[in-house]
């Protein structure tokens, strides 16, 4: 009996076919593998609020089941989400946290057009506002809706403030901020971690852009770099060598709790470290002051954020929209424990106090200043809508700021380099189709 022989070509073809058979179904963009449940992807751990939102939604709409999947909100986590969206993974609703990723997703067909739904709903008209936008509008179409507002404020360590005899400011300028940091600086404690973004306060949203060029020629940018450098040099702001070598950018709360620095310009998401003394031991209360003003301007460094988007490929659009609307209009209260104040402001003051400041708010917070700064005032939040070359510009600002605050580069030279890099990034990105 003659035995069949195979050529190398046939063998390789067979291996290739086998591989294709194994791989192709996994890349299917069709409905293969889609579940009946609504698939929601977000960056906040389920236990920090989303699980309770989902639970409340399912109780109100028993016909829908929701699976919440957490992705880590960093470069790799966002890449995972982007690849999943492109690869046809079963995702109906997802969150976007960075402005750079938002522009790409909205401009690349990964976000459903929500304009008609928003326009038709009286509760959501605020999302059409373009003065202080709470949505991302791409070519006239609403593609993403902010679920949270995160105003910046300045926290005072009350114990150290009273020791230094410094009055808690109710309004102040950036120069007064510097003077206060100086008064609070001791042998053991630096006055402030760093200073608020001077140019942001003065210029507001889209402050990096001026027409089809960058706006880094505005003197407020150099003022911010120079002021930071001078405060570090005089010892009233945290030494940048320590910030970089200890990676403090991501762990500022540890140094604040350890009383290494005093003033902390931050946002509500960091309050969770301050009401749990068992997990994050400390023995002081904190008080709240508004962000300082710059040249009479008072834009807040915070923004409307945590944008919710619907995958245009979702076959469950009605369920997805029901979930989005529920989150926006009535379901976001559980997110308060992670410091996410609802973008629509549809929660009571008491819900905010108990949600954001833990079980014993009086023990760890000066409630009077909290009510004044966070609840009563209406800070001008600056949400960027112009995002050309956003990641490149962010990196350029960070790199040059580091060099400047390490004392290696003059503030003027550093800002000119940022301007050169930002102009190049804007020109390159605007050339793209």
């Amino acid at each position: 009996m003659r035995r069949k022989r195979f050529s190398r070509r046939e063998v390789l073809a067979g291996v290739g076919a086998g591989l294709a058979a194994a791989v192709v179904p996994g890349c299917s963009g069709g409905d293969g593998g889609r579940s009946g449940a609504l698939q929601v992807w977000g960056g906040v751990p389920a236990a920090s609020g989303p699980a309770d939102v989902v639970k409340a939604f399912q109780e109100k709409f028993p016909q829908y089941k929701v699976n919440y999947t957490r992705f880590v909100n960093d470069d790799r986590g966002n890449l995972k989400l982007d690849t999943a969206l492109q690869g046809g993974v079963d995702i109906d609703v997802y969150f976007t946290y960075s402005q750079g990723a938002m522009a790409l997703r909205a401009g690349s067909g990964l976000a459903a057009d929500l304009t008609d739904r928003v326009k038709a709903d009286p509760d959501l008209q605020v999302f059409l506002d373009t003065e202080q936008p709470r949505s991302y509008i791409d070519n006239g179409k609403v593609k993403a809706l902010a679920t949270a507002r995160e105003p910046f404020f300045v926290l005072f360590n009350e114990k150290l403030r009273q020791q230094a005899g410094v009055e808690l400011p109710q309004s102040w300028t950036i120069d007064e901020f510097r003077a206060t940091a100086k008064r609070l600086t001791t042998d053991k404690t630096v006055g402030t971690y760093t200073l608020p973004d001077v140019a942001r306060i003065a210029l507001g949203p889209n402050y990096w852009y001026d027409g089809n060029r960058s706006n880094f020629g505005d003197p407020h940018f150099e003022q911010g770099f120079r002021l930071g450098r001078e405060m570090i040099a005089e010892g009233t702001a945290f030494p940048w060598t320590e910030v970089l070598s200890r990676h403090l950018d991501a762990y500022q709360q540890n140094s604040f709790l350890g009383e290494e620095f005093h003033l902390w310009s931050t946002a509500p998401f960091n309050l969770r470290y301050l009401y749990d003394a068992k997990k994050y031991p400390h023995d002081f209360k904190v008080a709240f002051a508004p962000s300082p003003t710059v040249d009479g301007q008072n834009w807040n460094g915070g923004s409307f954020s945590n944008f919710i988007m619907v995958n245009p490929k979702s076959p469950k659009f009605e369920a997805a929209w029901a979930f989005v609307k529920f989150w926006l209009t009535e379901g976001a209260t559980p997110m308060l424990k992670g410091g996410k104040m609802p973008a629509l402001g549809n929660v009571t003051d008491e819900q905010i106090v108990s949600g954001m400041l833990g079980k014993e708010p009086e023990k760890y917070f000066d409630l009077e200043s909290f009510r004044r700064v966070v609840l009563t005032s209406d800070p001008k939040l600056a949400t960027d809508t112009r995002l050309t070359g956003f990641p490149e510009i962010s990196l350029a600002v960070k790199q040059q700021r580091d060099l400047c605050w390490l004392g290696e580069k003059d503030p003027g030279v550093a800002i000119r380099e940022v301007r050169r890099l930002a102009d190049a990034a804007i020109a390159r990105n605007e050339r793209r189709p």
Partner: protein
Amino acid sequence: MATATVVAAGTKARTEQGSGIRPSGWIGFLFIAPNLLGVIAFTLIPLISVVVLAFTDWNLVSGLGGITFNGIDNFVAIARDPGFWHAIGLTLVYVVVSVPLTVVLGLALGIALNRPLPGRAVLRAIFFLPYIVNVVAIGMTWLMLMNPKAGLVNQVLDAFGVQPGWFASSHWALPALIVMAVWGGVGYCSLIYLSALQDAPRQLYEAADIDGASAWSKFRVITWPSLLPTTIFLLVTLIIGASQGFGLIALITAGGPGDATTTISYYMYQTGFQFYRFGYASAIGLVTFVGVLVLTLLTWRAQRGRALND
């Protein structure tokens, strides 16, 4: 008839030895199939994809439909990109300093560990340890050791009046990474050299001893030529490894301060995964691949005919 039989037999032999595969050969393919599939799926296809994407302006998020071929635009842009050339310069410094240092120290350590020392086996294991320890643990440990204010390294250097800023200085960050790379690679090199030294021809040493050769003469004439193939292997693998150095940079400096440690692999990562310029990043990858290939071939070529066995 006899001629025809011979021809037929010859054809059969050619078929079995040449282009055909006996069915029994399938068993061999089955054994290597899992690895082969892995190589095809995770190496070959991505490699081909990189070559194709290098000629496109693709950003991943736009999907396969968003792929637009732009000819050699990416390569023209690379030639004019100061960030690319800066990264190439840093990578060359990193490779040119760290690789020879690692090899020389590895050789010295290998020779030392080849001698009858007390506790030699334990010492070998200790020196090899950095090679197998998790990169995150290494990074965090060195970050603490090299803290400019409270780190052990600067406390020792303080006695000499030197206080480098290490990872918080654009002048010292790359040297700090080189120190870590050398520390991590010396143990590996010494182990490879150790095995090569144990294979060195004893009879030549005996003959040299009889001739009264000095220790340096024996090293120059016998040891070094016999270690040359090993050295070339180490140079090639270390050059490739150093050119691809990424983990510690991503973990410790993220390319900074400024762009002081943005080597070519990190620049490629930034371009692709932070700026989403996957087409351009692929072109950088392709150019780097060709550069490393040329460097490797030159290294390989340099040793031809110089080894003891050649």
